[in-house]
């Protein structure tokens, strides 16, 4: 995994702010352990240059991830992935997650995507993120 391409894609026309798109995708990679603790992410300047966005946009995404405990930001040395202890589950977080998921499913159903496709996408994402553990666990 360490040598495979780790490509992030952003959509400047999306209603989701660019810094959140970047943070969301890097977070997904971190959850999937595509980056190991101690590994360095590319510098803010490098990511901004490659994406064609402002430095501040990428810096904001990195700051968000640092606040969540995923990254350690060192001035002049870039962002380093840190080992993060999973916080204790919180009923409010779980409810918010459930609500967001329902909203998302309603949106894609309204856009015409079939339940079968949604189900297979869920399974694919869960497998990618958690492997076998993702099926039938997590309750």
């Amino acid at each position, binding site marked *: 995994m360490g040598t495979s391409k780790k*490509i992030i894609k952003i*959509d*400047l*026309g999306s209603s989701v702010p660019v810094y959140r798109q970047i943070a969301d995708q890097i977070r997904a990679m971190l959850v999937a352990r595509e980056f190991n603790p101690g590994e360095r992410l590319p510098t803010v*300047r490098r*990511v901004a*240059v490659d*994406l064609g966005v402002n430095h501040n946009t990428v810096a904001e995404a990195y700051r968000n991830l640092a606040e969540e405990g995923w990254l350690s930001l060192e001035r002049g040395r870039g962002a380093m992935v840190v080992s993060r202890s999973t916080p204790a589950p919180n009923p409010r977080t779980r409810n918010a997650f459930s609500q967001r998921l329902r909203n998302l499913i309603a949106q894609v159903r309204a856009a015409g995507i079939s339940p079968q496709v949604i189900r297979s996408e869920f399974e694919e994402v869960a497998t990618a993120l958690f492997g076998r553990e993702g099926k039938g666990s997590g309750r």
Partner: protein
Amino acid sequence: MIWLNVLHMNPVWSLVVLVAASLEYLMPELSRPGVAFSVTVAPEFRCSVRHANIVRHYRRGILVSAFTGLMVAFGAAGPLNGWAGPAAFCAQYVIFLLAFLLARRVTMPNRIAAPDTREADLSRREPPAVLAVLVIAPLLTMAAVLFWTYSNWQQIPDPYPIHWGFDGQPDLWVERTPMHVYGVLGLLGGLAALLAFFGYGFLFWARRNVGAQHTRYSFPAIWIALFLGAEYFVAASATLPLGLDIRPLELIVLAILAASSLYLIVIGPVGGQAARRPDDQTPDDAWKFGIFYFNPQDAALFVEKRFGLGWTVNFGQTRAWILIAMAVAPLGVGFAFVMSIAS
């Protein structure tokens, strides 16, 4: 300092005019499929009769530009003294610009929205820091030459050689005065700084392509080699009056330039790589007149040209203006110096 002679060599300028016009003639085919005259278009448009007509008219303009340039170079525009060559180059370029802008204007109605998606590969690392040292090393050499010149003024040859023939022997001298000696060093230093600026910029401030199909497309790497080779050559030239023989370095630099040029022609855009180039991740509106890239929201200092070979500066960045001024100012002083000697 070949340019002292070259300034008056109209055959050389005529060749420059012809090479420039030839490249401009081929340029519509070298652009990416989704771009025509710096405008984002549907790939099918490039195969349409409409596009073929626009290209035909553009190419007529290029032929006129080449003809005009050659006429000016060979004195058809009246006595220009030593300036017929540069005037020929300018005349050709102005007519090319007009042809390009006209073609761009008639292409505009076929414009489509540029993609809003952008990609970056987080697994790719920065180039090794040693490359930055390679870029800066010639400037340090020049600083050392400057220091040596200052502290060993009496050992500087008088008259002071400022031009060498192909046999490696000096063939033009000037009186040893601070203005002449430091003027030459200033000119070479400015040129080396400009080349170093571009070399460093291509390495660290330029956008990189994403995707497996572009792994062979090392256009920036080749440009870096070209600029580094030229920078080392310029820095080595500064040591010539001190009696150092730089001919081995000249051979190496020539080999780099020849290999890079061959690569650009055979494998680069001319070799069909243009069709595989990804979207350049730049919005259409940021391309002023289709040539100047002005986007303060883009952190890249260099972006690939939409019409032409190589890269261009993002004029939307303050540091671009600061660095350009820093590099160009000594060049202006040096040019004035050369003019004063030439006259």
